[in-house]
């Protein structure tokens, strides 16, 4: 039944025009994804008006291509320059950049790309097979279940804090503190906004992430170059060894448990509205490290770390269309933009979408699978091009990245206030880098803070301050037990 419809979908999706636009979409997505701060979301909002005059299938397939490319492109600056432009690529930098520094930048990029495509494909297959039952399952997740998931996510700090757990916790709490700025989610009263209207929605995640993750790293590298006085002429890595940069299939597939685990984590996060790509990436990384027999290798240029992150963040892309197609609600902002595109093309997303527009939906499903093939091909060609960046002197690359950081913050909201914030966070990031406070933990605290506060307060209101709901809901109970288990394991390893 599904196979028949999917085959019919392929017939439509394989139209030459559709193929051309999918390829263009993936390529554009990758390029935009590489620019710091600009990811799928910015690319989609700029490109949606262009699709007005396209056929609905071509338009959506094009946008799906952009979304796929945009999610994986972010790995490139994370690996080559240690400058992840989005929090979703922050964990990629943890192992990707050390691997690149060891003279294997191309191998790191290949690992990232293949893992992305793998995670994405698994997620698409789950979407196609399970959209309807998945959605029914997703409805069982309410505030109590979200609270438990976020609680569990806080245990990531332990694995990502680097050398000093105490400093990691301090960094996370500082991020958490900054995330409380803005209007209170329950009674809408101002908190630490100083009547600055730009702060009513809180500090922009984009500005914070680009500042502490990308720009501060660039500043750091400039200082190092000045101190060592040699970086001026040399490319990033002189000794490019072709042999060392090969990625053998056996080596890649020997880590299949990590790939599959991350693909499922990403898909699970993707189908639950509101959790987001970045959390998927951190959860993928954290769980791979926890499951590993050699966790000490993580953070030193270990391929498994890249795989765990990239498979997880790309697996969100397909799955976040589950709530869109089954319930008509967006899984995240990228999906919200695609909902807008659906409406412009005469399709009202909602529970009746598959019934009313079955042909189109299966055409889109088929296009998603074809897009993955394009993603692999175009991404692979791209790696050769990005490889050249490693031969450009840093004195040229780094100033360009600084400009891109500023543009990347300005474009999505067109706000100079956010650019100022970003510069301030770059300063903070620089200080943290030089005092050993984990920036990743800081970002995680900032990311999880509002999720935890909102779900916890919703839970308390909904169940009249009865905390036992966290134990009586089976899904919540699982995550509470997981939290206790990982704390216990961490304490024992000490």
């Amino acid at each position, binding site marked *: 039944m599904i196979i028949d419809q999917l085959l019919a979908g392929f017939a439509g999706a394989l139209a030459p025009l559709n193929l051309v636009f999918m390829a263009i979409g993936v390529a554009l997505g990758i390029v935009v994804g590489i620019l710091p701060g600009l990811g799928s979301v910015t690319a989609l909002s700029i490109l*949606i008006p262009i699709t007005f005059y396209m056929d609905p299938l071509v338009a959506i397939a094009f946008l799906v291509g952009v979304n796929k490319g945009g999610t994986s492109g972010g790995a490139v600056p994370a690996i080559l320059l240690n400058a992840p432009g989005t929090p979703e690529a922050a964990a990629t930098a943890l192992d990707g950049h050390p691997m690149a520094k060891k003279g294997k930048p191309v191998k790191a990029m290949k690992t990232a790309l293949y893992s992305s495509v793998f995670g994405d494909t698994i997620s698409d297959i789950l979407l196609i097979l399970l959209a309807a039952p998945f959605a029914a399952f997703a*409805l069982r997740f309410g505030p109590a279940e979200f609270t438990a998931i976020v609680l569990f996510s806080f245990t990531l700090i332990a694995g990502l804090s680097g050398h000093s757990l105490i400093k990691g916790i301090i960094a996370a709490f500082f991020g958490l503190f900054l995330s409380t700025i803005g209007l209170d989610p329950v009674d*809408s009263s*101002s908190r630490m906004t100083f009547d600055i209207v730009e702060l009513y929605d809180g500090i922009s995640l984009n500005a914070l992430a680009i500042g502490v993750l990308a720009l501060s790293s660039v500043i750091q590298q400039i200082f190092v170059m000045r101190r060592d006085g040699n970086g001026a002429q040399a490319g990033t890595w002189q000794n490019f060894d072709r042999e060392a940069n090969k990625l053998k299939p056996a080596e890649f597939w020997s880590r299949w448990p990590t790939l599959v685990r991350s693909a499922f984590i990403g898909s699970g996060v993707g189908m639950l509205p509101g959790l987001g790509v970045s959390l998927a990436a951190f959860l993928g990384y954290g769980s791979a490290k926890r499951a590993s027999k050699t966790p000490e290798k993580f953070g030193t240029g270990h391929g498994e770390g890249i795989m765990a992150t990239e498979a997880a963040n790309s697996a969100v892309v397909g799955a976040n269309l589950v709530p869109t197609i089954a*319930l008509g609600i967006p899984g995240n902002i990228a999906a919200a933009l695609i909902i807008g595109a659906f409406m412009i093309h005469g399709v009202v997303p*909602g*529970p009746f979408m598959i019934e009313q527009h079955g042909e189109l939906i299966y055409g889109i499903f088929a296009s998603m699978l074809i897009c993955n093939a394009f993603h692999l091909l175009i991404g692979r060609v791209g790696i050769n091009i990005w490889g050249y960046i490693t031969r450009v002197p840093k004195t040229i690359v780094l100033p360009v990245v600084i400009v891109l950081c500023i543009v990347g913050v300005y474009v999505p909201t*067109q706000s100079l206030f956010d650019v100022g914030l970003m510069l301030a966070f770059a300063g903070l990031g620089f200080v943290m880098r030089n005092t050993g406070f984990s920036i990743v933990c800081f970002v995680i605290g900032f990311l999880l803070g509002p999720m935890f506060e909102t779900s916890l307060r919703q839970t308390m*209101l909904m169940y009249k301050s009865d905390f036992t709901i966290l134990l009586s809901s089976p899904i919540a109970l699982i995550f509470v037990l997981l939290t206790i288990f990982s704390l216990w394991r961490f304490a024992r390893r000490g």
Partner: protein
Amino acid sequence: MNVKVRSPRFGIAGLAAFAVAATVALGTPAYADNYPSKPVTLVVPYKAGGSTETMARVYAKALEKELGQPVIVKTRPGGGGAVGATVVAKSAPDGYTLLFAAATALLWPPLTLNVEYTPDSFRWVGSITEYQQALISTPDKPYKTFDQLIAHAKKNPGMNFADQSALSRAFINYIGKKEGIKWTAIPTKGGGEMVPFLLGGKVDVAWSGGVHQKFGDKMHVLASFNATRLAQSPDAPSLKEIYGISMPSYAVIVVPKGTPDDIAGKIEAALQRAGKDKAFDDIVSNKLKFPNQFIGSEKLNQLVKEMIEGLNTVIAATKG
């Protein structure tokens, strides 16, 4: 000595003179004859992807044909529309910066938050549609009408309702106050969070800005928050019939105060004609199922006064 005392003054005077000269030289005088002579910006104060932004994108295309200049949609999200509204309130009143927003984004924040604009900071040019705001529930609940809900809520204190803003919460609390009902507001971040809560049975009733119309018989309307009953749910009463209050429902286009009459007139005429565009009409009438009806500045200004009065009533009643 003399020079020393006078020099700062000269400085200020000189600066002022320079500023005046610069303004005269650089500022484009707002002549209606050649308006518009450059691209027009349409600011949407919400995140991309929502129904307002989708409407604005299509509407901008139609407006472009009428004005003969490109219309660029810019999103400036934040503070429930307050960030975009502040930006437009402070921009030059030359007809090149328009704001497309829910009337509530211009009326509610000045009443409850510390923002740098008031409803009078704008010239209200026109309204192009109405959001379909409703109190909704699912068919599996024992109450099928608003009266049954009130009766049920009186017998079962502590029901949960999902709101999407301080404004929607205030209105539902107003109902509670009037009827002596105790129920709990669960804040949600918009339709995307409200829908799973309602369908998953986590809340009993919910405020909807129009998203329920996509769900057919999976959701039903108990009452309308608009001044009139909703076209799609003619059997559900409006709050106006019951309590004499209503929530502002208009999607409006405004320009900064001080925009010259002739330019505002040109924009109003273009807005009215653009509303008849086929693609826009299809999105509004068939996809969003909102009414495609234009309200001109004259009637809109009257409505604004009524809306402010109504909101003050609700604030006074639900305080504390």
